[in-house]
Structure formats: C-alpha cells, structure tokens
C-alpha cells in the first residue's frame, strides 16, 4: 500500500444533473486510508448518485474525482476497480445458485491448465472470510442457503479480492436485521484495521454513529455539514439531514 498523507479518494466540486433535476451540486468529499466515512441523507438526497460518481457507474457533469491527489476519469466500473476502488451494491449481485467460492471468484476463476483450480480458490476463500471474522457454515453451500448478513459478508469478501484501497458500500444495512447489522459493523471495523478506506451510505443514523469516523450529510444534492462522529449528537445529525433549524 502506497504511503500518501492526503486522501486516497476525493471528490472536488462535483455536480450531476438528470435533466432539470440536480442530483449533486458542488460536492467535496475525502476518504483516507484507515478511515470509515459515512454519507447520510434522506431519500433523494443524492447518495446513490454520489456512489455512482465514486465507482465509475456514472461520470459527473462538473468537478473532479481524485485518486491520490491526481484527477482521474472513472468512465467504467472496471476503471475504478483498476484504480483500487471496489463497490458493493445494495443488491449484492450474487448468483444464488452458486456456492460461496464460485461467487467469490466468478469471472476471475483460478485455473490449473484448462480446468478450474478449486483447491486454491477454496483455501483463499476461507482465509478471506476468516480475516473478516465472517461466520459462514461452509464455503460450498449455495448462497441461496445463507442469511442476509452472510451474503453481505460474501459480497464484501469478493470486493476485497482485487486488494482495493477504498471500498464503497451502498446502503449496506438496509436489508439487515439487528444482529446481522451488529455483525456487519464489526466487519467494517475489520476493513478499517486492514487499512482500507471505507465509504458507506445509509439513512440509519444509529448504525452510522456506531462505526463511522466522519459523517458527511447530504441534503438535496448539497453537502449540509461534515461531522466528527465521536462528538456529534443524534439530534445534530437529524437536524442536518432534515434541514430543520433548531
């Protein structure tokens, strides 16, 4: 991992419109290594557009995306992956009929000659899941048989295969139960310990406060404040999200 003092991934003055609707207006954002940044906002605040701009799913109309301080054009998710930015989407994009190992390596299978190298893949899969302290009964069960939290762990483990420096998680807790959310938050801490920068979006303030170092509030496409998670109250965050003056 290269040692750079500044942010690994940053947005500078980014705007994006869909016709007359302005989804993002002049947004600045930084993600450092060893840091969890949460982006919160109400529905329609621009969270998904922001994730799209960071992961190459869409190109902003104005402003710059910077990786290690140099401007880059993320024209495609594969370009972003190549620059060390991995995305885990809300739908997880797993094939339910394939098992954990098959899903982890889908599209990037290890081979021995012309045949698949199941042993290497299975061993690495266990190592990866153990690092994340993810509890999966077996790596040879179809993903259909796993719980929502376990599926998410598999999706995150998959995003780690390319040794990314930043992991972008879109609404990771939206579909999780209480216990699974707790397990997920532990998992995010593991990612931070491994040295990854993590950016996650959410509209659950409680989850975000539990895990984030910094919280960026989006409101109607604009940044409506940046908070130190340890020193900000729930009420302050709620006020920033909803725009209600106290």
């Amino acid at each position, binding site marked *: 991992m290269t040692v750079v003092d500044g942010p690994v991934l940053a947005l500078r003055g980014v705007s994006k419109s869909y016709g007359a609707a302005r989804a993002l207006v002049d947004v600045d954002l930084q993600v450092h290594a060893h840091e969890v940044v949460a982006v919160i906002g109400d529905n329609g605040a621009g969270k998904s557009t922001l994730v799209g701009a960071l992961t190459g799913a869409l190109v902003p109309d104005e402003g710059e995306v910077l990786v290690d301080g140099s401007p880059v054009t993320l024209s495609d998710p594969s370009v972003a992956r190549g620059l060390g930015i991995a995305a885990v989407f809300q739908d997880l*994009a797993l094939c339910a009929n394939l098992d954990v190992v098959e899903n982890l390596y889908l599209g990037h299978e290890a081979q021995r000659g012309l*045949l698949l190298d199941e*042993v290497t893949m299975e061993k690495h899969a266990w190592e990866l899941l153990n690092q994340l302290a993810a509890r999966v009964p077996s790596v040879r069960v*179809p993903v259909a048989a796993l719980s929502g939290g376990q599926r998410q762990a598999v999706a995150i483990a998959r995003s780690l295969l390319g040794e990314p420096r930043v992991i972008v998680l879109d609404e990771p807790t939206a579909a999780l139960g209480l216990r699974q959310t707790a397990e997920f938050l532990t998992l995010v801490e593991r990612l931070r310990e491994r040295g990854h920068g993590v950016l996650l979006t959410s509209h659950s303030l409680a989850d975000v406060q539990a895990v984030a170092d910094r919280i960026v509030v989006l409101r109607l496409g604009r940044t409506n404040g940046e908070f130190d998670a340890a020193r900000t109250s729930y009420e302050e965050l709620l006020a920033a999200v909803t725009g209600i003056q106290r």
Partner: protein
Amino acid sequence: MSESGLVATTWQKLRTGDLGVLPVAVVLVLIGLVFQVLNPHFLSADNLVNLTQQSAATGVIALGVVLTLHVGQIDLSVGAVSGLAAAVVAVGSVQLGWPLWLAVLAALAVGVLVGSIYAALHTRLAVPSFVFTLAGLLVITGLQMRVLGPTGSVNLPFEWWLVRFCQTAFLAPATSWAIVALVVAGYAAGRATDRIRRVRAELPVAPLWEVVARVVALAALLSVVVAYLGTNRGVGAVFALFVGLVALTDLLLRRTRWGRSVRAVGGDAEAARKAGVPVRRVFVSAFVACSTLAALGGVLAVGRLAAANQGSGAGDTNLTAIAAAVIGGTSLFGGRGSAWSALVGILVVQSISTGLTLLNLDQSARLVVTGLVLAVAVTIDALQRRAREA
C-alpha cells in the same frame, strides 16, 4: 453423523434437488424392474443393446437442450433442426453427389447458423427464446420440406460409413474394456490428486473410504454394462459417441470457466454481468452448442434409419428431447442440472417406449405415459425450486 442425521440431510438434499441425477437413475432401475416383471424379454441383452442404440440420436439432441436450459432459455426447434440436418445430409450426398463427410459438415454448419441467429435475436433484441425458437420450428420445418423436394424421402445406401457407424458398428470387446480401464484409472487419479492437494491445503476432505467406494462403484457400473451388453452385440459405436459427448460436456460444465459462467448466467444473468462474466458470449455459446448438437442428432438419425424424409425430426423428436432433459433433472428455471441428465433422461423415455411396445401397447399409450412422466418431472422441479428458496 448419526443415522437419523444422515436420513435428514439426504431428505433435505432430495427436497432441494442437490442429489443431482441420482434419484432419476434409481427411477430408471425401477422402470427396468417393473417392465422385466411384465415382460421377461425387457432386460435381455439384446433388448438393452437396441435400447441404447435407439437412444443415441435423440440423446445427443437432449444434451443440447440441457445447455439452453442451463442458461435459463429453451430451444423448441431442436427436432426441426435435426430434421433439416438429416435432409441436408441425405440430399447433399445422394442427390447432389457431395462427398458424405462434406454433407455431414454442411448439416452441422446449418446447426451453427441457426444457433447464431437465435443468439443474436436473444442478446441484441431481447426476444424471449420460446417465441423465436417456436417461429424457428415453423421456418426450419418449411426449409426441410423444400430441401427434400417433391419426393419427400431420400434413402442412403447401407454400405456408407455413416449408416454402418449408426447401425452395425460396435466396439470390440478389447476396446470396450480398455476404455473402461482408462476411465476408471483416470477418475481414480483425479480423485486422488484432488484429495492430496486438499490435505496439503488443510481443507476438509471426504473420508478415504468414500473415495475408494466411488471408484469401485464406477468400475462396477461400467464393468456390468460392458460385460452384459457384451453377451449380445456389445456397446454400439453411436451410443459410445453419445456417452463420450455427455462426459465431455459434464467436464466442461463443472470444471471450466465456461461452465461456471453458464451456470451463473442461468442463475442470475444481471449478477453475472456485474461480476464480469461475458454474458452475451455465454448465451451465444449455449444457443450455438444446442443447435449444433441438434444437427448432429439429425445426422446420427439419418444414419440409423438410412433415410431422411419429411417425418425426420418431426412429431415427437422435439418433445422427447426436451422431455428427456427435464426428466433427467435439469431445471427449467436455469442454472441447475447436469449433462448426465441427458443420458439418464433419454434412457427413461426410451425404456418406457420400448417397454410399452413389448407389452403390445401402441403409440397412444406411449405418448400418454411419457407425458405423465414429464408432468411429474416438471412438478418435482418446481417443488425443489420452492424448497431451495424457503
């Protein structure tokens, strides 16, 4: 594992379809026993040799159907494609005087072409496959009639190699046993290396007795088949070709990157695309492989009958091939199944057909029974899918 635990896991696997073709193989044995009780000629070596020989052509077509079902699509025109291929072989070689090998290649090329057109319609225009293959069924049947011309029927000389290969060529006993020895040795070696590598990698391994039992079971199964068929004419060349194609397809589906993409696309095409699978190419390969295997089935059928006519590939060929794939346990919902389901499925369908014929029941009974078996198979498929999602 306790005994009740083993029963519970087996039941769970049965409910969700994780036992693969094993349950259908058991059904096949039961069908054989029932017909044997009703007519003592059924399990005679002579009848079983006939049965295997009759299964080959439609079995090859069913193997193609397995591939389209794997990607979650269906090809309803496989029978028509096989009929057109048969017509091309017969008319090309007999009436136009092409060398036979050229006529066979032309027939296979027709299969490749039809599959490519289907793939283009599906991947570029997103037309549902059951509609355009139904349209294809009509178009191709029309082309078959046009190719055959006004006489409507063309005979092949019996001494031609294609006819001899499909009718009278049998593996010599020495060849059969050599193949059995090679297959068993290869299987054992593969299992052993896999186990050693897993032990080294500190991964969980199946107990040694299980590995040995599997090798012994395979050796026993193949030996019994070869020895018993050997008391009559032996293993037919065309049946050996069919089984070889099934084994090759099984290897491709389970152990290669292509096979994994096929299963992924059949399970969830959008997720597969996001994971970096070339979804479009996977669809093209499945449709082309299916139509080409259908054409090959037609070539084998023309060899077996030594003739092509307007009835080639018509009527029940289509439905038999599709029914065989589904009865063999390949899911209609995509992403699940096995190449072996083509073999087991066609043997079930052919056994029912032969068995009922031996009982002096006519075509009507055969259609009704096969239809009912297909209905049961589809119901089981749907129930298993529900059990997996629960």
